[in-house]
């Protein structure tokens, strides 16, 4: 091919790419403009009035909290059990869901010699379905059967966690080196032993890192589910907000607790993940 031909081809490709980028930008702009227009029409309160009122509520509760003075901290203290409950929902759901995720991930990885191989396909579909179920639906359904309690939220979050972590874990498994597993097979190790010693040591750091991330997400999810009747800090929020004026200090206290705990967990989890990524002591 002559230099000229190559040049024109490159030019053509560049032109095409530019066209695609332009089309993409136009499309996104169109979606945004028409979307916000439509959303504004469908919304009960409009954007402009909303903007004016935006700070009303936050400033109202801040004022009430300020008025409460020192006793604000007492109010916060009163809600610590609710916070603990929310954290427990997230903690138990992460552990139960995470354990289930490990099992599902091992059965749903194509490279680990799971027999018969259809099990892998079936388990993957199960994980997809578990992931797709919004926690809200499972929680509402279980609240209907079990009654208002943290347990429905815990189960709902655990199911979603099992699906979401299971998928990530199985991706980690499928990147694991097969040689150690083969080495153990040649010694006559059982499937479980091969997984325990051949795969788990390779994947554990990645597992932990994903787990920490998921725990943080689960704390947020647990707080939200409380709002539909699952207990914990969300339930208290629903109560204080439902009271309207007068409970502003309580609402502010609950907001404060939630924000603080999320901040702490966020910092902790990124600290641990950084340590896991940069590797531990090489003994």
């Amino acid at each position, binding site marked *: 091919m002559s230099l000229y031909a190559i040049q024109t081809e490159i030019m053509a490709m560049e032109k095409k790419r530019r066209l695609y980028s332009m089309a993409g930008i136009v499309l996104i702009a169109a*979606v945004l403009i028409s979307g916000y227009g439509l959303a504004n029409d469908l919304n009960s309160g409009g954007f402009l009035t909303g903007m004016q009122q935006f700070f009303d509520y936050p400033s109202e509760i801040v004022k009430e909290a300020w008025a409460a003075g020192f006793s604000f901290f007492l109010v916060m203290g009163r809600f610590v059990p609710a916070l603990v409950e929310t954290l427990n929902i997230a903690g138990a759901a992460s552990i139960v869901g995470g354990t289930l995720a490990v099992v599902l991930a091992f059965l749903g990885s194509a490279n680990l010699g799971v027999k018969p191989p259809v099990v892998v396909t079936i388990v993957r579909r199960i994980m997809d379905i578990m992931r797709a179920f919004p926690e809200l639906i499972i929680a*509402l359904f279980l609240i*209907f059967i079990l009654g208002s309690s943290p*347990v429905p939220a815990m189960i709902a979050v655990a199911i979603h966690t099992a699906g979401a972590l299971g998928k990530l874990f199985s991706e980690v498994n499928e990147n694991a080196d097969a040689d150690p597993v083969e080495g153990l097979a040649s010694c006559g190790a059982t499937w479980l032993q091969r997984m325990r010693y051949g795969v788990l040591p390779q994947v554990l750091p990645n597992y932990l890192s994903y787990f920490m991330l998921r725990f943080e997400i689960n704390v947020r999810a647990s707080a939200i589910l409380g709002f539909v009747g699952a207990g914990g800090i969300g339930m208290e929020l629903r109560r204080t907000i439902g009271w309207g004026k007068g409970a502003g200090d309580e609402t502010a206290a609950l907001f404060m607790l939630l*924000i603080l705990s999320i901040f702490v967990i966020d910092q902790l989890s990124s600290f641990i993940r950084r340590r896991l990524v940069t590797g531990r002591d090489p003994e």
Partner: protein
Amino acid sequence: MASSTLAIQPPAPISGSLAVFSRLRRSSLMIMAGTGLMVLYLLYTFISFDLWHLISRSQPQRAVLLATDAVAHKVHITKNIRGAGRLSIAVEGERTATYETPPGWVTVSDDLTRVDLAQGYRVDIYDTHVIFQIPDIGPVHVRITDAGIKTTLPKGVDPPDWLRATSAKFDARPTLGRRVQVSKARIEVHRYFMGWENFFFPFRSELTAYSPGQLFALAFSDQRIDPDMPNWRLMFTTFWKNPGWQHKQVFVALLETFLMAILGTLTAALVGLPLAVLAAANFTPAQALRFVVRRVFDFLRGIDMLIWSLIFIRAFGLGPLTGALAIAFTDTGSLGKLFSEALEGVNNKQMEGVHATGANRLQFYRFGVIPQIIPVFVSQTLYYLEANVRSATIIGALGAGGIGLMLVEAMNTQRHWENVFYLILLTISLVMVMDTVSAKVRSRLIHGRSGT
């Protein structure tokens, strides 16, 4: 082949053998302790959640009820004793779905109403006397007297556990699909049928009389049922405005939820990207500015979607705009943080190369930076979009509207489980479609066209 087994000499006292052993034992103890702590913590949470009490209090029959109602519908045959003995036959007992002429399995004559419940089950209603014919048991007589409800079982039959008979009420449900209730005020017989009732057209609509094939032919026929509009329009309008299933409202709710997710995520991504540039050490030398932007990200993320939603619901009321803004605020923080990390990881060589060509600032970004972070940008945005469809259902349930709110309301009425089931199916389909599409695009992006 040697049959001799390898014998390692009796464990020679190797120096440090005890140290090695105790080291191994320590790590094994750590594993056990870790597992034990996890189990203990779970036990503690279960106790604090009062799990045993909860299980004993749970109502599993509600799940059965819900499951039956979700996939089947029932027809009520009601005889009001007080209302001058009036008889009504209606789908789910709704007045709008009352049969003008009784269906074939109900025969009404002057003194007798006979309800055929199939497979040998039959109910005969004479004035205030009900005879419930049950296979293998025989006729059960129920009479409404001034003294109360009198139930007579055939001789030598013990009352089965699916039958409750007191002087106030008789209630028998020999199978999931058949039920007879008698109280002083009324006699009520339920017969269940599989499937959703009147899913396409309302009970009263003349369109219910046609089979799918006939409907198809009718849709393109010139003989108008309604002179005002072509048949296909009539069919669509009837379907769209079906009061039992509210297809229009459901569609709008789904659209709202989808709008919340897509607007929120797009806004977050487009606002997050320029902010991320300000937060990345290799693009923004001013440390103070970087610090401020990063704290803004932390603030937005830390407030949490729940609180943002509550604030926006107060200010903007019900609707997709509210949900979109709540998502946008939270995820501007999350995506901004991710993008700035991606920016800090970009390859400086490529950027310097572009610089060396004497490119201006805009060209520098266009050729040196954007090609490198576009894959991260698009795949993370899609990933968040996927998750936000789920989040949008929850925000909706908090009060922002959309399918989430519809679902909560449908569940709270504790009736029409078929509608709840339908909404659940739609929500999950929406989520799964989003999952699949975004997974496809992401894998195209990573494995397909590389780089730019």
